[in-house]
């Protein structure tokens, strides 16, 4: 065994030992606990499942959902109604309790998930209120305000699980299964994709990550976990009432998640166990549980925003930062090809209106393979809007965008990024929490569909595949001489080098066309020369480039053709030397007087 392998297995042991010890401690406690203690332990397990689910939407996707308590209640009611009224057993009611909130989440997802920040919180709160009203006013079916009693116990294949140790063990086995699934889904690159989404949705789209799909998957999972937790809660307590769906359930879940840590597996356990046992320990202050929850939530959000688990992990990481070994970069990767003969990019009649302002009034142009098109124009002439429309970051009101024979007009930004148009932004859009290499590896993984929950379940977003994506990412960083920054956090990147990383990120998606929005801004002359050499090199590789720039001394020598925009129209187009003398350009850029002179 080599020393590196030894070190790695030691680290793996180090990462697993706390979990094994915690599991042993739990079993030892349960073996000697009173019936009441076992019941509290089972309820704590229920909360762990609820919080594990909430971590998907609130922690990973970063969306403040206030419907988690309602999903929990729906799961509980489904188990209670089907179990006590229709006599269905656990093996039927448990899956249905997961499916019911999941189906509701799927039904409302399309409109609700489009909403930003507090609108999403408000809409999910409205949803929860409607669910609560339905539960209180459901008459016979839900037992009204009093609720339903006589929820049957858990029966597994004819074995009625007795209350006490066995019952609590079944609950905790389900907890373990939930934790295993969460770890499986989030430990690899898919988990990092959520980190990007949370930090900067624009950066996520730029590397081909679909915000809609990631958020939807997280929302559905959180609803499913909540349903499972609700079903278990109904079995533990034997009764279900509107209390099960009250806002206090939601707030308790939120408090547990924030206190424990919203993105780490350990956080769900720490938060749920701590806040379940806190009121038990403070028995002398009976009835003050929610007051304690409020205080804990406020303290945690102010003092430890990544929760107790996050604070511990941060300390450990600061003590020992493991360097992951990186495979050597492969030889040259194949450069993109496409049908020849036609222009690479054909744009026809592209138009955009913002309210009453026509930002673009129908633009036509083409870009050939290996051609650099410069786009100039005064501020507000529509240059950035043009870039946003072609790359799908803003929906156009008319016109078509055809790349290498494929119509990209109806696609969204992340799809277009994977279909062959990469772009940079005036303010670099790089995910602050990731390293440069991780970010570029994510782009590689998104290109080969090795991201998302299906890929994670199949193990395609970690291990060998991840190492290969990292190796290929390194190759693209090397092309731009940015490999020295591979382990820098994107947030710590020097401004003057950001363009190298941005272009490497674009290349990692193997684009056919590259759009750069004012790449030379803030660079000195030597760096501008470096940038220009790299742009020429990309063109020689057969890529088309669209370069928006104000800096004429930089742009005119590097561009093959220049298009001038003014007030949303292309008013001139031609070779750089002709553009320089074009009266319309001179008049728009230098003022009418200079044009006449």
């Amino acid at each position, binding site marked *: 065994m080599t020393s590196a392998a030894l070190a790695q297995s030691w680290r793996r042991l180090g990462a697993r030992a706390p979990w094994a010890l915690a599991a042993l401690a739990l079993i030892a406690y349960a073996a000697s606990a009173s019936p009441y203690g076992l019941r509290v332990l089972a309820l704590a397990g229920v909360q762990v499942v609820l919080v594990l689910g909430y971590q998907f939407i609130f922690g990973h996707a970063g969306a403040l959902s206030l419907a988690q308590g309602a999903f929990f209640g729906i799961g509980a009611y489904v188990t209670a109604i089907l179990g006590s009224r229709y006599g269905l057993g656990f093996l039927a009611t448990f899956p249905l309790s997961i499916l019911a909130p999941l189906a509701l989440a799927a039904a409302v997802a399309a409109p609700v998930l489009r909403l930003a920040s507090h609108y999403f919180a*408000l809409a999910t709160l*409205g949803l929860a209120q409607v669910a609560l009203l*339905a539960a209180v006013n459901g008459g016979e079916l839900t037992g009204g305000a009093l609720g339903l009693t006589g929820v049957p116990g858990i029966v597994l294949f004819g074995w009625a699980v007795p209350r006490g140790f066995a019952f609590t063990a079944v609950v905790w086995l389900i907890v373990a299964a939930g934790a295993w699934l969460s770890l499986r889904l989030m430990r690899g690159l898919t988990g990092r994709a959520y980190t990007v989404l949370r930090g900067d949705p624009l950066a996520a789209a730029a590397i081909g990550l679909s915000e809609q799909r990631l958020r939807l998957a997280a929302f559905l999972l959180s609803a499913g976990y909540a349903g499972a937790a609700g079903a278990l809660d109904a079995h533990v307590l034997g009764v279900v009432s509107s209390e099960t769906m009250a806002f206090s359930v939601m707030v308790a879940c939120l408090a547990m998640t924030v206190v424990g840590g919203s993105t780490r597996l350990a956080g769900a356990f720490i938060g749920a166990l701590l806040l379940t046992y806190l009121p038990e320990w403070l028995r002398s202050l009976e009835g003050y549980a*929610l007051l304690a929850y409020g205080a804990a939530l406020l303290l945690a959000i102010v003092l430890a*925003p990544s929760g107790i688990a996050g604070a511990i992990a941060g300390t450990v990481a600061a003590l020992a930062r493991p360097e992951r070994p990186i495979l050597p970069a492969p030889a040259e990767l194949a450069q993109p090809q496409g049908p020849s003969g036609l222009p690479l990019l054909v744009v026809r009649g592209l138009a955009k209106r913002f309210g009453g302002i026509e930002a673009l009034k129908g633009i036509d142009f083409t870009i050939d393979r290996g051609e650099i098109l410069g786009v100039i124009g005064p501020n507000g002439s529509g240059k950035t809007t043009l870039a946003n429309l072609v790359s799908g970051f803003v929906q156009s009101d008319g016109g078509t965008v055809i790349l290498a024979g494929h119509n990209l007009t109806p696609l969204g930004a992340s799809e277009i990024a994977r279909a062959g148009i990469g772009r940079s932004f005036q303010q670099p859009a790089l995910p602050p929490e990731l390293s440069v290499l991780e970010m570029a590896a994510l782009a590689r993984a998104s290109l080969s569909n090795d991201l998302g929950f299906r890929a994670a379940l199949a193990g395609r977003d970690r291990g060998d595949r991840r190492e290969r994506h990292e190796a290929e990412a390194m190759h693209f960083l090397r092309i731009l001489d940015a490999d020295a920054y591979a382990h820098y956090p994107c947030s710590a990147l020097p401004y003057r080098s950001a363009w190298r990383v941005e272009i490497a990120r674009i290349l990692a998606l193997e684009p056919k066309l590259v759009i750069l929005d004012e790449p030379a801004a803030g660079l000195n002359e030597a760096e501008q020369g470096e940038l220009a050499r790299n742009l020429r090199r990309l063109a020689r590789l057969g890529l088309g480039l669209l370069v928006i720039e104000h800096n004429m001394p930089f742009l005119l020598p590097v561009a093959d053709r220049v298009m001038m925009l003014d007030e949303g129209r292309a008013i001139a187009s031609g070779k750089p030397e002709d553009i320089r003398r074009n009266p319309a350009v001179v008049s728009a850029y230098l003022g009418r007087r200079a044009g006449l002179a």
Partner: protein
Amino acid sequence: MTAFLQLAFNGLALGAAYALVALGFVLVLNATSAVNFAQGDLVMAGGYGAAALAALLPLPGLALLPLVMAAMAALGLAVAALAYFPLMRRPASSVFISTIAVGLLLQNGALHLFGPEPRAAPAVLGGGQMHLGHVVLPYQSLAIVAIAAALVLGQRWLFARTQLGRRMRATAQDREMAAALGIPVRTMIALTFALAAALAGASGALLSNQFFVTPTEGGALILKAYIAVVIGGWGSLEGAVLGALLIGVFETLVAAWFGYTAAGALLYGALLIILLARPQGFYGEAAGRRA
């Protein structure tokens, strides 16, 4: 027709009280870009404050109102110090969560201090009523409308005519620019919290006479304030007041015909439909960064 007018008047009085809640909510929203989720619980606290003060000082509601508002303004400063200033440079959702925590503290604090039984504050002027045709106008409802109108106009006057109000507006519009002009931004934000809490307190004192006050009523109130602000245009003060009046009338009318449950369900249903049709809100909030 008389029945309709009667209901419309009752709804107007309810909406006037809601307007104070929504106005406080939107003032904080503009000043901080953050949602103060405890605004509903501050209303509740105002209701209890009025009830508790009445037990100590046998004064009419009108005399208690300034005292309640002053105490609530102090509470607003405390909320800002605990739940806003430490999170000033964090994402707006942190403040949403910290104010949920404040709401939880207020609710359970009230529960322990006053118990779960509903309480009532004294009437503003007295229990009488007057008639306009066949429509009954209780003095309390008239007083709510009058006081709410006075406070809304007072807030407008403060913002439009006074140096302090102009400073608060400047802070809300562009904090950095305001700071560059030498405006004490933190003080202005703290005062905005105080003003918002005072308005919430007034609303609570006015509402709790007719509708009583319970520790958990804040949740429904914050939702209504939120909906009023969405209807009226995110960030618009006038819009929030109009939206709140609309909700009060809507709720009263629907409740009279179909019951309170249906009124609530319809209101939340309407909210979901509004969000569906105008997901960016009525003000087109998602301007996005300059890409």
